């Protein structure tokens, strides 16, 4: 930890008095408990303070960054859910086959690989070796777009690599959960009954097995959406994506504590709220929970 005014101290003309003034302005001269009381009081009043780096209200900074994070996390989570679920179904219906083994291996590999490594490999492959996608930022810098559509296409191009990176990172969990859930369902008696009635296998899987197996996935999606909100620091930093993660990273490097506290507050609140939503969804989706 550090005192943010220390950065000023080496400036040849910052006198000790000036540094003292700055410390007082940020309340850093108060005892720790006093600082904490200030913080709690302000937070209760939803006042997150002013960013020390940009001198803008922390809320404004968060407001600017949040849509970008939502776009990236939304796309990444959606892709991971769809692809992970689909692969999970494929693997479960072919349990023990080579497809199953290789899919399991692949998803565990991407799950355990560090995010920044996946990001860098994607950049190396698709931005450097075969330059089809931009390596970073959220839109071509300095471009004046003719229409909203042109801008949307540009943003989408920039979104491809980071959202695929995020998808690969998240994919493993969705895959493993969907696979085991499907395996459970597929071994139940009602599946055998459905098959015995002569229903085609594809229909049995799609209509009866998948629907039942999807339940645990709903909670997982919601919970992870919450976690990922504050947790895509590495991917956002590597791809220079101006969301909450990059905001946090910059706040850490410049010791901008109000900004950091604000970002973490948003992060924790989103985890809690999304957990709650997940629980409620479960209640709606699964009649068994209601009766219990």
């Amino acid at each position: 930890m550090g005192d943010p005014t220390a950065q000023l101290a080496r400036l040849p003309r910052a006198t000790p008095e000036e540094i003292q003034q700055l410390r007082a302005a940020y309340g850093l001269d108060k005892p720790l408990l006093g600082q904490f009381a200030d913080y709690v009081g302000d937070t209760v009043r939803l006042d997150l303070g002013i960013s020390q780096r940009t001198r803008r209200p922390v809320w404004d900074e968060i407001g600017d960054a949040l849509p970008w994070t939502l776009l990236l996390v939304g796309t990444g989570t959606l892709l991971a859910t769809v692809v992970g679920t689909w692969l999970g179904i494929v693997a479960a219906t072919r349990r023990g086959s080579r497809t199953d083994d290789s899919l399991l291996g692949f998803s565990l590999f991407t799950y355990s690989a560090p995010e920044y490594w996946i990001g860098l490999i994607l950049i190396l492959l698709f931005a450097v070796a075969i330059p089809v996608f931009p390596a970073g930022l959220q839109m071509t810098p300095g471009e004046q777009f003719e229409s909203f559509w042109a801008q949307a296409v540009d943003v989408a191009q920039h979104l491809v690599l980071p959202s695929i990176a995020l998808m690969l990172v998240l994919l493993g969990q969705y895959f493993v959960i969907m696979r085991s859930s499907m395996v459970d369902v597929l071994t139940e008696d009602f599946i055998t009954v459905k098959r015995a009635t002569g229903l085609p296998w594809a229909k049995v899987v799609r209509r009866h097995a998948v629907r039942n197996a999807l339940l645990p996935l709903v909670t997982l999606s919601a919970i992870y959406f919450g976690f990922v909100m504050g947790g895509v620091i590495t991917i956002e930093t590597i791809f220079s994506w101006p969301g909450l993660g990059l905001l946090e990273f910059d706040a850490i490097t410049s010791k901008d504590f109000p900004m950091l506290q604000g970002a973490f507050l948003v992060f924790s609140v989103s985890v809690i709220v999304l957990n709650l939503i997940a629980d409620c969804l479960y209640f709606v989706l699964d009649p068994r929970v209601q009766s219990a």
Partner: protein
Amino acid sequence: MRRFLIALVGALLLFAAPAYAQEKKVLKIGWAQDPQTLSVFVDYDEESYRIWAISYDLLVNFSPDNLGPAPGIAESWDVSPDKKTVTFHLIKGAKWSDGEPITSKDVKFSLEVLGGNGALFTGYTDNVTSIQTPDAETVIVKTKKPDARIVGGLFIFMLPEHIWGKQSVKALTTTYKPQIPMVGSGPFVVTEFKRNRIVRMERNPNFRGSKPKFDEIQFIKYGSEDAVERALNLGEIDVITEVQEATFDRLSKSKGIKTVKAPSPSFTELAFNLCSKEHCPDAKFNPAVQDRTVRQAIGFAVDRERINEIAARNTSFPGHGILPEYYKDFYAPPEGDLDYPYDPDRAREMLEAAGWKEGEGGVREKAGQRLSFDLFVRSESQFNISAARLVKEMAAEIGVEFKVQVVSVDRLTEITTQKVDGKMAPDFDTFIWGWGGDPYDPSTLLGLITTKQIGGSSDSFYSNPEYDRLYEQEAGEFDLDRRKEIVKELVAISQRDLPYLVLTVDPTLQAYTTDKLGGVELACPKPDGDLICDQVSYQPWLTLGPPEPDEAGALASSEDDGGSNGMLFVVIALVAVVLVVLAVLFFRRRRGDQEAIEI
């Protein structure tokens, strides 16, 4: 599932291959940090300085040749015989970018309000007693004693009074943020500032000098230094103004990229705690550090070339005293032994002769004192840490022990600035850290070791009346030759007493792509300064432009080929992937049906 896959591939192809069409002549500069607010009163980051130096003039600008005084808002100036009054004659007919005339009112406002309250601009006008404006084109500055900084050393930007003057000082130093487009007098002014994204500077229509060749300069924010360097390699940006030491060498070898290594006015020093009982009655340190012979021996034992080669990966310059070579008008290399050429035998002899004999563990001792010192270094700088390890290694060769302690920058600030009962009480033997000076005037750096700065900037707590006297003389001398003589004496004294052993002069490391940037003439100071006179002068922007067609033509066309070839590869690769996936799915599906019966 198949449909989904095909749709996904189709979507990817649709978005692929972005087109970067441009008609305006734009130069893109990448950075990993962007300015805080761009307000001259509150920001203290280099990025803001970079923008200000392009937007604003000084009263007297820095010449790109040698950084000496050159016409700025003032066209000429006269110094009175007693050297206490300087009369500036302002340039005639000059206008701000919004069309308003630039007058003496603006100068007075800037010197008084910015010079009195700006976070980075106070201190320059300490000696000023009055600023008079007899007419719109004349400014008379009076000082209580001769102060050579008044001409060529007032690093205070000239602001339009009709914009900034409308605000109260309190607002300026707290919440005020400059309106966009910003009003300036330089060749470019800020027309867009989106934090975390872009600072766009467009040509100032009312600029009084020659028309810049670029229409626009963009500063683009990336997530990290690595991302900036990647963007340069990919051609997304054209210039980096701060390259990392670790990657400088690799960038130098990249095709189509040129790198620039220029000396800067900052150095990295090994500082010794010389605080006397009088100034620091409660300071804690090993008194042996105050033995001048010991410091001199360390000076001979430390190979500064090696520190540059290993710790700085050869990106720095070995140091030669407290004034970096960057100060062309004042610098003269310390002569002979005062430069401390690497000579460990000499160092051992000196210690031996002074009675420091080898004792336990090879550490020299005398009368119960051991040559064993704490060496503090800040954790933020890998370079400083490596330098500290090398110093430790080299000093061990002559029987001096350094105990390297890596601490946070706050801790280091604390142990060098702490007080007991209102008196300084520094708690260290030695440390490694750095300082940066003004672009032209050597007084800031030379002043760091004056007695007056104890309790202020001084962190060696060196005190020498002779040095102080010469320093006052130097600061008040307008005659360049006489001033240079005094500076030489000051450097000689500081090298003899060695409060600082300056290890390296820090570099400015830059890189640019040769197919986007031409008209390069390294300046500030010429001939081996930096690309854009970063943070000092806007002059290079008047000659920098896109390269002449014959320079860049070949490069550009070959690049296009690469692009379309790449696209072809991707199409082929994606088609192949799709075919393989479809084939696998097809066969697996059939097998899957059979396996499923076993459930």
